[in-house]
């Protein structure tokens, strides 16, 4: 029987001066070893939810645990077992890829020879060794995304949060990233992932939750979601069926 990696219970988040809850009584369990896709239109509450799980935002109410650690009591312990890959290219542009990874690796608690080995190995895995000593500012979008991913996984986290990790990259880089995420998952890493690329999510994720207005509207395997949605042949059609065609402009 698989263990629960993330247990969210009655989670609420309302921003100051907001009229509505960005996350509204959300409860869900994510099993260890899953690649969990958190899908939803703009402003659905995906980034807010991930920000709370990563300890960047304080929930208005409710609770959650990650690998059995409560955020209320053990937020620092949680930070040791999670990895975060933000939507932005969260790297120092004037430092080289190696320097960025060494810095963020040291901040996540790795040091000395171990850090060097992990950085070299990570660069090798995503075909970046050749460019290790080039400044990030000179990198293409796809290369930046790959370094951005590596900076979040150097300490080998148990749970990895990825906010749109393939946005704005070419197909080749996207394939490398997706393959690497699958490898990490096979090695035992639980991955929570948000994306607007629904076909990519259909291919990658073992479970998917469709979130809108801070609530979960559907939660299952991609195959089950497609099967149980009338007339749907893929995840995109499931998504439209659940969230509608209305534009969701959000600020």
């Amino acid at each position, binding site marked *: 029987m698989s263990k629960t990696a993330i247990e969210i219970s009655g989670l609420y988040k309302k*921003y*100051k001066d907001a009229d509505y809850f960005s996350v509204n009584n959300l409860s869900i369990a994510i099993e260890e070893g899953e690649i969990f896709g958190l899908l939803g239109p703009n402003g659905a509450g995906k980034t807010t939810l991930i920000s709370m799980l*990563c*300890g*960047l*935002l*304080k929930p208005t109410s409710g609770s959650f645990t990650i690998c059995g650690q409560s955020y209320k009591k053990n937020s*620092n*312990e949680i*930070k*040791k077992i*999670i990895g*975060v890959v*933000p*939507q*932005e*290219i*969260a*790297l*120092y*542009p*004037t*430092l080289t890829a190696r320097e960025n990874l060494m810095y*963020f690796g040291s*901040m*996540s*608690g790795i040091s000395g020879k171990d850090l060097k080995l992990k950085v070299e190995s990570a660069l090798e895995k995503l075909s970046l060794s050749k460019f290790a000593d080039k*400044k990030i500012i000179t990198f293409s979008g796809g290369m930046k995304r790959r370094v951005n991913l590596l*900076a*979040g996984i150097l300490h080998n986290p148990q749970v990895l949060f990825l906010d749109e990790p393939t946005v704005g990259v070419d197909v080749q880089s996207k394939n490398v990233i997706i393959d690497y995420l699958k490898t990490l998952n096979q090695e035992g890493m639980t991955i929570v992932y948000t994306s607007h690329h629904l076909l990519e999510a259909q291919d990658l994720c073992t479970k998917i939750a469709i979130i809108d207005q801070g609530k979960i509207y559907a939660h299952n395997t991609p195959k089950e979601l497609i099967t149980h949605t009338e007339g749907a042949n893929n995840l995109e059609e499931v998504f439209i069926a659940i969230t509608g065609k209305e534009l969701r402009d959000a600020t």
Partner: protein
Amino acid sequence: MRDPGGLIILFVMPLVLIITITLIQDGTFRSVSDTSIPILLIDNDKGSVSETVQTQISESGNFEMITSLGEEPLTEERAAEEVFKGKYQLAIVIPENLSRDLKQKVDQNVLTILSSLGFEDNGLEPEEIQPKEIKLYFDPATQQAFKNSVKNGIERMIATIENQSIYKAFGEQLGEDVESHFDQESFIAFREITLTGEENIIPNSVQHNVPAWTLFAIFFIVVPLSINIVKEKQQGTLVRLISNPVPYAVVLAGKTITYLIICLIQFYLMVAVGVYLFPYLDLPSLEVSGHLLLMTLVALFSGLAAIGFGVLLGTVAKTPEQSAPFGATSVVVLAAMGGVWVPVFAMPNVMQYLAVASPMNWGLEAFYDVLLRKGSLTDLLPELILLLLFFIVTVLFAIGYDKKQRAV
């Protein structure tokens, strides 16, 4: 090394600033200026008084006297026009019959005194003599300090001329060579005794400027530091740092140490310029012997205060467009309040109270304690403690604000 432009701004610009300001202000501190200021003189008197005035002004070496412009004779109207246009800093107009009237007035006074002492009176009713005035025209852009200095100089000159006239009048009335009997040298003189007991060593532009502008440069670290924090927020690196198991205080400690090293490098570069480069620019050398350790302490604590302010500003600001102009202008305001430009004692009362609240004033006073007042570590402690408290309070406020923002 990755950002040469940034390095130039951080280290070279403060040196350019300190050299420029010290060179400019050096003249103010020197007792004898190297340059002569051209001034216009309209002599309507053409007597002994105007002759003495002209001689003394010429001998001072500070002014080049101009009595005619081209072919045309210099009139009061023309002189006023030239000065008000800013072509000359000053015009002096000596009134008609000044020498004659002064002599007459002094003679009358002397006669009155002598007759009251029983000397023979000539029996004539004294003629009424109107007071005279020497007119001064200043360029409207002239600073008050220059005006005051010129006015004081002329006042002193007139007093001397009047004294000499009185002695001369007594001599004439008494029929004796009184001038040779009376010692006309000033009986009361003044001399400045400095803290070291040496009479001829007075604080110079370098001793004042290097600490003041070093402090100014140290506080300018607020601008790059706050921009750095804002950029980290914008590009997401701060999110990455915060989501690590490292406390935010450690992240701030890393920044504090880095920027403190920058501040100290800036400080040592500026001291090196003061000690080694200034003598080549015909400026006095910065005297730091025996003070370097205490000066380093002041620079260290001033750097901490500046970093605290930068961290707070970077935390509160949302964009570099907010942090950069606010940072720069607030440093200028703190410098002005702190006495970098105008000494605190010369400020209006309200500003003197506000100056006490400026960390730049604490730093400046601490530097002056070391360099000019020969203070010990004990003398510096109050200022160092204030600077440290400022750092602690600003950083705690920044951490609190950041936490609050995450809780909204």
